[in-house]
């Protein structure tokens, strides 16, 4: 695949869970809607992949407002996975999305493990769906989401059920709101996940001092944005050192250098969420900045950076590159 005129310079393409991505930068679920919302504000064909908003079997109405509040270098949200349901997605959004020539990854969410499996079955073979991302990490809904994601055994059973229901590549999105993210990652990979993505948002709160109550209607929300990047990076580093499947890293990525940090921590690709709200072209800009960094540092392929900082802190050894075991070999 040629990066072409959008991304002159080094080859930015990567392969993750069998998906060939033009760049390692995809959109993070929830921040990009169903893609169409941003049409006209960026060239969607230049995205590594589009990960659509969390989609359930039936329409979900979401949480009462207020749903968002900005905090220092961060954004708290409590959307509650509002979405029009999988049938609406298949009928109205997927035909449009599948014409873009970009891998489409459907983020799925349910109230029970059976619903996740039913979604996997429904989307299996749907023309234009490239992969599924199981959202078992939303902090803003009672059932589903975090109820599974914070319990490795429950998460494993859920993934097993989905694995049986679909041949699509299966990505599992992990929560940072857990003591041992590596144990969780190990369990979902054992259950059949082809890749893991992290981090989802961190549970947080903001209080209105005059009103004397939390600003968000549900009290807590999920924190994203630059404030969470160091936490995300440490968790990606930990998980990448634990599992053999590709890791998709996200959490506060704003620049190409941020993305490179995630790649060097062991992510094979990255996702951009909150930055989209500030810069709708952020995924394209970040991909270009990764290319600029690679050109400046003499990297020819993205894979040369993946996990570089995650090999016992030995850093870059270009001359002995061939000696370095690949990620699968660790």
């Amino acid at each position, binding site marked *: 695949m040629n990066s072409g005129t959008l991304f002159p310079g080094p080859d930015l393409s990567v392969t993750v869970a069998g998906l060939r991505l033009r760049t390692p930068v995809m959109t993070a679920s*929830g*921040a*990009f*809607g*169903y893609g*169409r*919302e*941003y*049409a*006209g*504000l960026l060239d969607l064909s230049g995205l590594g992949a589009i990960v659509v*908003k969390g989609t359930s079997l039936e329409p979900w*109405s*979401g*949480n*009462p*407002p*207020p*749903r*968002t*509040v*900005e905090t*220092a*270098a961060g*954004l708290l*949200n409590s*959307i509650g996975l*509002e979405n*029009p349901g999988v049938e*609406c997605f298949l009928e*109205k*959004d997927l035909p449009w999305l599948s014409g873009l020539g970009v891998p489409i990854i459907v983020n799925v969410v349910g109230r029970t493990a059976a619903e996740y499996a039913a979604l996997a079955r429904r989307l299996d073979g749907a023309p234009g769906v490239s992969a599924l991302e199981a959202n078992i990490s939303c902090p803003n809904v009672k059932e589903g989401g975090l109820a599974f994601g914070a319990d490795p055994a429950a998460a494993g059973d859920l993934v097993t059920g989905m694995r049986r229901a679909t041949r699509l590549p299966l990505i599992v999105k992990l929560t940072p709101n857990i003591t041992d993210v590596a144990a969780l990652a190990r369990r979902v990979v054992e259950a059949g996940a082809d890749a893991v993505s992290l981090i989802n948002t961190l549970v947080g709160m903001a209080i209105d001092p005059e009103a004397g109550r939390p600003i968000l209607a549900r009290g807590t929300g999920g924190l994203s*944005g*630059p*404030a969470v990047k160091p936490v995300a990076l440490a968790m990606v580093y930990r998980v990448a050192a634990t599992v053999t499947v590709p890791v998709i890293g996200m959490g506060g990525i*704003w*620049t190409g250098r941020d993305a490179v940090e995630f790649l060097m921590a062991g992510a094979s690709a990255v996702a951009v969420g*909150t*930055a*989209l*709200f*500030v*810069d*709708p*072209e*952020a995924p394209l*800009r970040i991909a270009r*900045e990764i290319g600029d960094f690679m050109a400046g540092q003499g990297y020819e392929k993205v894979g040369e950076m993946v996990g570089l900082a995650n090999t016992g802190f030995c850093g870059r050894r270009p001359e002995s590159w061939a000696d370095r075991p690949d990620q699968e070999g660790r």
Partner: protein
Amino acid sequence: MTDERQAWRGLARVLASRRLEGPVAEGGDSGGRVYHHLTLLAPEVAAAAVPGQFVHVLCPPRGGAGGAPYAPASATPGLPFLRRPLSVHDADQARGTVGLLFWVKGPGTAGLAAARPGDRLDVVGPLGNGGFPLGLGPALVVGGGIGLAPLLFLARRLARRGRVTVLAGVAQAGDLALVEPFRRLKDLAGLIVTTEDGSPGTVSGTVVAALPESLDGLSPDGHSGAVYACGPRPMLRAVWDQVSARPGLTAWFSVEERLACGVGACRGCAIPVRTGPAGETAYRLVCRDGPVFDGNLLDWEAL
């Protein structure tokens, strides 16, 4: 879902930047609220915008951007990074300019207020649905405080079509600068200004207290015409209480909610609406479905 919209995103040059100065009340206290007006050169936005729509503006860090836009790549800790939605105060298609009027409320708007002529601001817009529907009958435009911002553009467009009265309320003398642009509007059938501190030349009280008389005067029977309102939620609710008691009137409200993406992607700016006669409710998005809503649609009890 809605069709793809064609909002413009680019760097708009600041042509003018001025702090609004109003008559200061005796004792010199302006109430502490500072308002600011920016004129941007943004022909694409000026050409496309209709009254009620907004632009989403990246706030430069306070201290001036020195002609350079605030790079989206820089999220400076302690400074706000999300865009700020600002209603289109006025738009001049011929000149390609867009006016923005805002309350300098926090560090984000303070950064905007520090913009100097020649600076460039990163703007996305116009955003929002089709704005205030413009009818042909008599119109009453009701605004409270900074809620007056989107109503100048509206009143100007309405005045081309028919009889328009503006009912503008502010808290105190120091806020009267918000009303000044309406005084310069031609062809208004009337301008009634209320102040809660009873400033000279104004009606003492709120727009809510002055509303019955304005509604009586809207049409001979007091039961036809359109009401357009923007302001604090309690004001909007009070306006709806009065308007809905007069069958035959239609009313359109510009509603605020905290918003993040501005384009309908994040679903952050939900407000409750009524979707059926049996009290069914749902959420609509202020950024995509609004910010202007038919009063009949809004779920006033939950709002």
